[in-house]
């Protein structure tokens, strides 16, 4: 890991008007939700959006803008650069989460009408922080072989494909007429298709638990590590074209 790249990545987030503005708005929302005694971590859906936006910018835009040529002319290993960028983006997201958590806590402390659900707040925020690890790792992996923001496009397309495929497998029946019936009979003969598609979905987009789940934690950590390893292997051999898109 390169402390220089990590620090610069974090710094660039916190000098970005968009990032700082979004953080301020979400902190305010977290405070207000707590003030009105909303559910613990009610602001986390805003964090999920930030994770996707920040993760999408990890490597693809640098690749397409031509910035990478300038950076890779410096004495830094490509894998180290990629992992440091990842660490910097995750660190910026975690700071954002810590601020959201702090404002929610302040909101609940100042309101102080009911007891503070500290454990629930901590666990749900921790789970979002862990989810950021996996989401960003998957986006880095997609970004290691795609240009620009296509990593986030693939992320959503794959998610939709898995969702639609699973819905189709579950809903269609062999006695249906036409193509539906043919597909249902095919899926019946090949149960491994449903099993494998579901496994891909579970591994890339695991549902975030509301309590601390050790198995989920291990899944997130191991899958993130595999995604980052694959990303490094691809990125090391990837050609960096000259000039911007």
């Amino acid at each position: 890991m390169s402390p220089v790249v990590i620090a610069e990545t974090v710094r660039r987030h916190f000098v970005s008007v968009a990032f700082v503005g979004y953080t301020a708005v979400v902190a305010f929302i977290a405070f207000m939700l707590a003030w009105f005694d909303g559910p613990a971590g009610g602001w986390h859906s805003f964090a999920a959006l930030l994770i996707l936006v920040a993760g999408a910018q990890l490597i693809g835009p640098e690749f397409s803008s031509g910035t990478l040529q300038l950076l890779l002319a410096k004495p830094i290993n490509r894998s180290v650069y990629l992992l440091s960028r990842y660490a910097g983006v995750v660190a910026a997201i975690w700071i954002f989460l810590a601020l959201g958590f702090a404002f929610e806590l302040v909101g609940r402390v100042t309101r102080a009408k009911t007891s503070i659900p500290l454990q629930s707040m901590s666990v749900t925020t921790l789970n979002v922080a862990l989810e950021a690890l996996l989401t960003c790792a998957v986006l880095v992996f997609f970004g290691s072989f795609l240009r620009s923001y296509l990593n986030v496009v693939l992320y959503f397309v794959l998610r939709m494909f898995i969702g639609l495929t699973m819905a189709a497998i579950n809903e269609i029946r062999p006695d249906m007429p036409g193509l539906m019936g043919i597909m249902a009979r095919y899926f019946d003969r090949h149960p491994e298709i449903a099993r494998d598609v579901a496994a891909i979905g579970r591994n890339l987009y695991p549902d975030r638990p509301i309590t601390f789940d050790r198995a989920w934690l291990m899944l997130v950590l191991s899958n993130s590590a595999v995604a980052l390893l694959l990303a490094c292997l691809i990125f090391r051999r990837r050609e960096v074209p000259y000039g911007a898109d």
Partner: protein
Amino acid sequence: MTVLVRGLRKSFRQIARRTEVLKGVDLEIASGEVVGLIGPNGAGKTTLMSCLLGYLHPDEGTITIDGRAADDLDIRRRTGFVPERMNFDRHVTARSFLRYMARLAGIPRSQADDRVSEMMQRLGIEHGANKRLSQHSRGMLQRVGMCQALINDPSYLFLDEPASGLDPNGVILARDIILEQKKRGATILLNSHQLSEVEKVCDRVFFLSNGIIARHERIRGAGLNAVVTLLPGSFDPSVIANSVGVAPRENVVTVPVGDDADLAEVVREIVATGAGIVEVRRQTADLEQMFRGES
């Protein structure tokens, strides 16, 4: 040889079509040499530069710099690269961008600020240090690009159109910087369409055409030419040919000479024939003619 390229081939696949851009390039650059790379658009100069910087992987052939691979980190530590267009996050200031580049180049935090200030002053961009890159003109960005390349006193300097977008003062500055780096002992590869600039700073020039080195020419140490433009109607071509041994083409006579004293002698001989002289040019290599002939 410091930079050695042997049998370099590189092609790009576009859907079903494969286009071979480099078709077996061989070149060598000695330590401390300034070499120009010229050629028409599409000749493969940028692809060659990208292979030398380790951005593209050759299909065949080898590239070594100081006996190591082009993308070796130790070579990177001693390399500076000026791209034709500076692409970076346009929201950062010139100073913070250069500080980041200095730190990536391995300059310790305690020295980075001083080094950045020193380089910005040398490149004449200290007044724009705290401006965002988006607020800089193309020429200023080019100077920032040169600044980041020189920040670690590189031993190998790859310059891709360094004078592109620069005003006349900037072009002169770029030339001075290249000559300074040469004096320091840096090995420089200059890709440029500005033939007069190549002529002024390079020791040798490689002409890349259709994916191969079609020709290479020594500029420094090669014979001089006296290029004398005569006043039309003031001379008899056969008298000029008898006097200096070369007949004029239209109203220009180009005479190979050994040194500056010979050049002065040629001018005296032409004047003695009664011809009117409009211009005398000291030409080290006729890159323009070479360019026309090969492209």
